[in-house]
């Protein structure tokens, strides 16, 4: 066992940082070319898709770094699509085209797993879909979308191109874009993978587990970014005659956050290592995600509180983390539901 930092991952991270630093907040149109220029999609993509096959461990670096800056997550969805397509052989070269920059892919409807709200009924030449699902409001118009559907007793992953998506997107009640799929028919080509059957899902190809690890890394990044802002604020700000970080109520809160962040980080690295050195361990993956999501909300709330009123204003970077926390800690189901799955997996594997 050697849990010191991995030099390759650190090198990739530094390269990526140099690309991401100038990217404006919340501008996916500016972000996507940077991810392509720095080959971020290629780190973990298999060689059959034009990638370097460095494993989900390097995908973790990408997701985390996007989270750190509260940038839109154009990676987790695209990587999941590439992963799913590649694991079914990819006769049409779709994975390579995604890695090459065809379009980013975002995810939707993962929060209802293991029971998708979308259903797919077999019809001649494909499936007819039913249901609707909200997507992240920060995703760009040029993105494709991947979502799970219930078909018979298994859960399949569907991918729609930006072109197919455009006519079925509207604005939902809380301002989020809503994908309305009632009556939409898709061909077999749009089915890009399977998440398996049962409760919890069997995840035969490890697609779900690897995606959860990336999502966990994105959340870890969000929390770490918020923590960095809070440390900066608390070090610079003086109240009652001293830097506020010297008050135990602030300093200890930051210390607890730092400890939890490190614990989450190790949990994610372990899940990624297991996925890269054998089949993914679904328990390790789901608990890394639950732990990361729960910690992200706690750390980001604490960081917001430490910022005081200034952090609530739209001129402070802090508010972006607070708003992102809500989207990203729930987009893969709440921590409570994920903990439940982890518990069920634990009891059956112990």
């Amino acid at each position: 066992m050697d849990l010191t930092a991995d030099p390759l991952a650190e090198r990739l991270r530094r390269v990526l940082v140099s690309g991401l630093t100038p990217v404006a907040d919340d501008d996916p149109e500016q972000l996507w070319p940077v991810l392509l220029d720095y080959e971020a999609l290629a780190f973990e993509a298999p060689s059959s898709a034009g990638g370097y096959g460095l494993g989900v461990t390097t995908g973790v670096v990408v997701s985390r770094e996007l989270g750190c800056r509260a940038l839109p997550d154009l990676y987790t969805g695209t990587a999941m699509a590439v992963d799913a397509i590649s694991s079914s052989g990819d006769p049409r070269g779709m994975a390579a085209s995604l890695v090459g920059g065809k379009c980013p892919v975002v995810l939707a409807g993962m929060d209802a797993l293991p029971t998708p709200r979308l259903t797919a009924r077999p019809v001649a030449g494909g499936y007819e879909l039913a249901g609707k699902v909200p997507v992240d409001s920060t995703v760009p118009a040029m993105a494709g979308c991947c979502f799970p559907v219930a078909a018979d007793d298994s859960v399949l992953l569907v991918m729609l191109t930006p072109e197919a998506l455009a006519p079925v997107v509207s604005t939902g009640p809380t301002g989020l874009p809503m994908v309305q799929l009632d009556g939409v028919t898709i061909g077999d080509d749009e089915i890009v993978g399977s998440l398996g059957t049962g409760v919890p899902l069997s995840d035969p190809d490890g697609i779900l587990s690897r995606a959860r690890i990336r999502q966990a890394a994105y959340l870890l990044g969000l929390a770490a970014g918020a923590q960095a802002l809070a440390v900066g604020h608390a070090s610079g700000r003086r109240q009652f005659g001293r830097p506020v970080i010297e008050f135990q109520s602030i300093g200890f809160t930051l210390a607890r956050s730092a400890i939890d962040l490190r614990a989450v980080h190790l949990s994610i690295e372990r899940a990624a290592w297991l996925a890269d050195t054998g089949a993914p361990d679904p328990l390790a993956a789901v608990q890394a995600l639950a732990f990361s999501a729960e910690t992200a909300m706690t750390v980001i709330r604490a960081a917001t509180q430490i910022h005081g009123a200034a952090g609530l204003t739209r001129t402070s970077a802090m508010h972006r983390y607070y708003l992102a926390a809500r989207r990203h800690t729930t987009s893969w189901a709440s921590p409570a539901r994920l903990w439940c799955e982890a518990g069920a997996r634990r009891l059956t594997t112990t």
Partner: protein
Amino acid sequence: MDFGRTERDEKLRTLVADALVDPRVRDALAAVLADPRPEPDVRALYRELGRHRLLASHWPVEYGGLGASHTEAATVITELVAAGVPDMQQVLSVQIVGAFLLAAGSDEQKQRFLPAMAAGERFATVLYTEPGVGSDLASIEATAERDGEDFLLSGVKVYGLKSRMSDLALCAVRTGTGTSRYDGITLFLIDLTADGVTRSNLPTMADEQFDRVELDRVRVGPGAIVGAEGDGWPLLVQCLALERTGLDYSLRARRWYETALAGLDPDETDSALLAGVGRCGAHVDAASLMTSAVLSRMDRQVTDEVMAAMAKYITSETAQQVAVWATEVHGFGYGLRSLSPDDAAVLEAGYREAAGVTLAAGTSQIMLEIVSGSIAAAGSSQEAWPWT
């Protein structure tokens, strides 16, 4: 203890119910609810409620109230909020500045301002903090320059609310220096339309926007001082206790909780979810009771800074917790269960507002400082049960 409703409570509830069916109130409320802006203008509605003496029902009749008790007045506000009346400007104008004037204003100030405030004809807000000051109000730097009998006030006040819709502001400035940083602070009631006052917006993530109010040699007379010159600090401490009943936060906690429940199936059997429903509900109920306990003391003329800090702490922390819990329960975009679009919008705005409730009117840290200070002062001499 008595947890029941008094006859007067019932009478006041009837008054509220009657007011809400008064066509003028009904139309004004409908206009506010239909207003698409994140921060609708409530002044017309408040004037109608003022006509029914429901804005400041606990004030003496001579000042436009009904002479109700504090607990009874809370019933009125609770009913109004339940009907959809936004409470923020009432909190600022009546519960904060009005309470301050009642406690510390001169007779002339009371007679001049309170009836208009109770009528919803004039609105007041507070200008306490400044950039870089935060909760450490003793470090304010706004100044008052003497000019004959008058003062010329200068400085920048931030993170206030509703200044753009208010006529008056209670403003803390430094009129002198003393042996301690708590000396030399003076409170002025200033006219927000006066020359030298510039009001602008500090956009926030919540629907309520912060104000930035710049004072550039704003002339005020000696009659604008509340209390005595240089004596602002103890007044401020006392009046912050008066405003920290937690009523506004406990109403938010309850509204968000009940909204979240509206999207749940009564036959729900997921025990993790049910445990959350049970725990949050108990906390919401307890937070309301903490507010009622503070109001009960105020009804007996007791202002208890420590109990108020406890109530402010628990109500605001509970409200924030409920807003965050609702995001978990209802999932991404509040779309996981059967929540109506209106209810989803309430929770969505609630989450954005929730970040601020543990900061406004004294941060949670300040509240804990007050409570722990009182525990340390009482120390081991106390009985096992000192805070009942």
